[in-house]
């Protein structure tokens, strides 16, 4: 089963992301976002990695998803850090706690793709369809 699929949008980038659990859904969303930002050219033996802890508390799931992506986007746009691995991700109601491993962008190993200006609220939706979670996200690029 695909983790995410891009859907048509005239100017920006719209994506549907999926997961069997909220944890999977949020992971898919992060992977989708980084697939817009960069593409891996080749693997490297050792990477400059950094541990980052993310804690978020929002009123609704949509805002929690946006806050999670915003945090990752902030590290990417200020320090050019790319998601390497999610070490832990716990979502309890509308609270999130995560430990992520980020790696530094290096033009030899990554190709830069689109700049994402922001994760928008436009048509942002998180829903449970039968036993599966689905979210719709539009990135302003």
């Amino acid at each position, binding site marked *: 089963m695909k983790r995410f699929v*891009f859907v*048509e*949008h*005239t*100017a*920006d*980038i719209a994506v549907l992301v999926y997961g069997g659990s909220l944890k999977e859904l949020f992971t898919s969303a992060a992977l989708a976002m980084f697939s817009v*930002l*960069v593409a891996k050219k080749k693997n490297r033996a050792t990477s400059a990695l950094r541990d980052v802890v993310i804690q978020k508390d929002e009123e609704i799931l949509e805002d929690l998803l946006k806050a999670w992506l*915003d945090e990752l986007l*902030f590290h990417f*746009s*200020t320090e*050019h850090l790319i998601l390497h691995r999610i070490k832990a991700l716990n979502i309890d109601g509308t609270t999130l706690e995560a430990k992520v491993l980020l790696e530094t*962008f290096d*033009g030899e190993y990554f*190709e*830069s*793709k*689109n*700049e994402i*200006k*922001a994760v*928008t*609220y*436009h*048509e*942002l939706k998180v829903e449970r369809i039968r036993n599966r979670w689905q979210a719709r996200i*539009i990135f*302003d*690029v």
Partner: protein
Amino acid sequence: MIDLWKGVLEKIDDYRWRIPKSYKKGMRVDGLIYADEKLLKDIKKDKALEQVVNVAFLPGIVGASLGMPDIHWGYGFPIGGVAATDIEKGGVVSPGGVGFDINCGVRLVRTHLTEKDVRPRLKDLVSGLFNTVPAGLGSEGEIRATIKDEKEILLKGSGWAVKKGYGVSDDLDVTEEGGAIEGADPEAVSLRAYERGKTQSGTLGSGNHFLEVQVVDQLYDRDLADAFNLDLGQVMVMIHSGSRGLGYQVCDDSLRVMLKCLAKYNINVPDRQLASAPVESLEGKAYLSAMRAAANYAWNNRQCLMHLTRVVFEKIFCSSWEKLGMFLIYDVAHNIAKIERHRILGKEKLLCVHRKGATRAFGPGHPALPERYKKTGQPVIIPGDMGRNSYLLVGTERAMEETFGTTCHGAGRIKSRHEAKRSVDYRELLKELEAKGIVAMATSHDTLVEEAPSAYKDVNEVVDVVHSAGLARRVARMRPIGVIKG
């Protein structure tokens, strides 16, 4: 693709279409779209018209919710959307009516050079520009600003660059708001926004931002062309960029605050991205103070980019930029909210005018114009795609009467980025551009493909509508010969 928009659209004349406010409960004014039949067919293919309807819900909106001919689906407001709210009547300001890229805009620089002078050195010129003007991910500005400098930039805009020697005071005279809008408050800008903007002064960015070397290929009005010192074959430079990460973060921060304002001020809008607050509320004032700071950052950014461009031209053509005649014609914002006075039903009102992907186009004699453009009207710069044309126009009295002195901002997309990637091949595109005599360089292949000419409406058709509808007058048309993308 989604289904064609099936709402109510009444033809007023060949260039004007009305969505009556009876179309949807909650609309406070009509929607008014400027387009011809051909453009309208494409406009109906996405959700732009429904967004015009949504904008008509904003408290205090006056006149109509406007759509320019380059309108397309955005977030909250459509791109190419214009809305003015009456401040006295509780009119709101909406960060979604400005967009994430606050004061994204364009500047146009003339030169004394002709295509004949530039053609033999074109490849050197384009690679010189590409190597000097930071673009794409990870690019950091050579022009470094400390935190103290950043605060000064947010207050003084382009004035900061000029003080540093990156330009002259004459540049400020021909920049909208003199390159620094009043009422900016650096304290209203979050630490995160500073962080995101820190290393990006003097960087182009990516997406649809560009730097182009262009040639004047058509003149429409000899008197106006003379007023701007323009002739056929003359080389120009156009720069399209905005407030970079700083502006994106200011918008994002404000949206979070304004989402809470929807309940607080009892504002009913159909899209959360239209979160807003009364202009006179604490939240509204705080947003406008931060937005103006970001706008100043953007004007300074374009000033720095122009400086870098002048330096490259000086190296390639072994002459000073003054001798090369590289004078700024004008710099306009096309993502901004401004407090302006306009006449509504014969009465002068203080309005908050949102222009999201729309350009101010003040007519002759307007007090906001510099002395040299009082007779011509405000220069309006409309970039097209990298394979076709761009335009210089001037604002009109009719725009003052109908659209709060506003016109279109570009060609407007027609294909999604994915569709462009599916249908355009990178090497084919470079060949196609080369055949037209255009040298293009981009840090990302994806960006170039996504921005391919076929992804855009024909800017000639868009400009034809605003000219024919009287929202701006054509002065000159340019075609690109050198393109730098992020």
